[in-house]
């Protein structure tokens, strides 16, 4: 399923949360959370808004330290934010090249850049600035930037939530296609149940604050999955039930 050359690199990546608790002041956000993300896995966190999904990503990326418990990370981590994570003063090429900063050889860097632009199908837009692109195109550039270079792990914080519905559907296909070409370990946060069912190897449903994992759901079906795929519909039912939104 995945390109063999990437296999070794991926096997180096691992994210572990061990008995992690976190609070903002007196407000407990996470309570005794355990999570192991295996190499190459796509884990999707779903939960009510304000339940601490983004906090988990911030802990995984090292942006914040937990109040108690340990976080272990192996591999190079990149984050895709909800929107406007691109530098508006740089062109599409220059923004993607940020992801290639660690690549020393200029020839390799140049080739990688061209490959990535072709991969996200934005040939001809290399010298455009982000404000000249649509929301979906901007998110594709973001994806190219995080996939570039030596990254192993992608943390995605509701990356498609600023797009319209059809835009979101397209971007899910796009993400699946890109991950097939360039496998990465992914932790994806969303409130969109469809998105979770279409993308995840494993869905973790979080409870209300302080968040714990209330349900773990494995989805075996191959990607890309149609919205009407029985596996997707089955998973959505399970998630909805867990969230108390379906009887």
């Amino acid at each position: 399923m995945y390109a063999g050359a990437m296999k070794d690199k991926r096997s180096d990546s691992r994210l572990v949360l061990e008995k992690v608790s976190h609070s903002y002041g007196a407000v407990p956000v996470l309570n005794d959370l355990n999570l192991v993300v295996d190499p190459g896995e796509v884990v999707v966190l779903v939960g009510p808004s304000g339940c601490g999904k983004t906090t988990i990503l911030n802990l995984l990326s090292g942006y914040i330290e937990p109040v108690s418990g340990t976080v272990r990370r192996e591999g190079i981590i990149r984050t895709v934010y909800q929107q406007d994570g691109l530098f508006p003063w740089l062109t599409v090429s220059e923004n993607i090249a940020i992801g290639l900063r660690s690549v020393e050889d200029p020839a390799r860097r140049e080739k990688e850049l061209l490959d990535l632009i072709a991969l996200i199908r934005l040939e001809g837009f290399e010298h455009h600035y982000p404000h000249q692109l649509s929301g979906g195109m901007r998110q594709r550039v973001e994806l190219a930037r995080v996939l570039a270079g030596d990254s192993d792990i992608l943390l995605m914080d509701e990356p498609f939530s600023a797009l319209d519905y059809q835009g979101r559907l397209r971007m899910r296909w796009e993400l699946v296609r890109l991950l097939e070409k360039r496998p990465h370990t992914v932790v994806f946060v969303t409130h969109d149940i469809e998105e979770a069912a279409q993308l995840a190897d494993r869905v973790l449903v979080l409870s209300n604050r302080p968040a714990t994992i209330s349900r773990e759901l494995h989805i075996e079906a191959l990607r890309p999955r149609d919205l009407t795929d029985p596996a997707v519909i089955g998973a959505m039912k399970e998630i909805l039930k867990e969230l108390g939104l379906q009887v």
Partner: protein
Amino acid sequence: MRKPRDPGSYLLPVVVLLGFLAIWFFICYSNLFPAYVLPSPGAVWKSFREEVVSGRLADDIVASLWRVAVGFVAAAVLGIPAGLWLGQHMHARQAFVPMLNFFRFLSPLAWIPFAILWFHIGDKPAFFLIFMATFFPLVLATMAAVATIPSIYFRVARDYHYKGIELLTKVTFPAILPQVITALRVSYGISWVVIVAAEMVGCQDGLGYGIWEARNGLRLDSAVCYMIVIGLLGMGIDRLLAQLTKLPNVRWGYER
């Protein structure tokens, strides 16, 4: 990409200008006011030709431009880095902002007595006054721009290991550049207003001094001629500064 210019954009101002001149002519030739109170367009044109032929106008323009350039560039070179620094250090902001605001609201003309006592007559008091007029607004505008940079840029910068001077030059500075350009245009406008007053008291030449001398000789035709030159030069230089907003890597700041 360039849109063809709407003919109204240059025809309409010309119509307004011609209308203004017509009213001016009408008032002058209907003898509502004596000629020494309101010079006629003809008298102004004559005085303009005299000033050009004698070379005085050119000398005055060069003198004023030089003073504004020195004072303004000094204020920008010191003020923008100071604003960057203050924008990044909260305690420094708390310490300095009240004082900076105080000086910003102090009319630069209040410094005229000090300018003359400290620097006597010549270019230096004008440099000083231009500097005092533009330094504080530039510091405060740059500082405010830094404080409003969306935190997402710094998170991305952190993800990709931008640190120290590279963070400053590749993230912080480009993120505020559109606002800095706007601040430069505004403070240039202030300096061009201040130079006239500065030259009336502290100088022996320059456009402001030209007006002062015209007043002393009751030559309002010459004063009007200088006023027109001051206004046109100010507009022209602002057009030049406005070209900066067309740089491709700052367009984003004006288009969303």
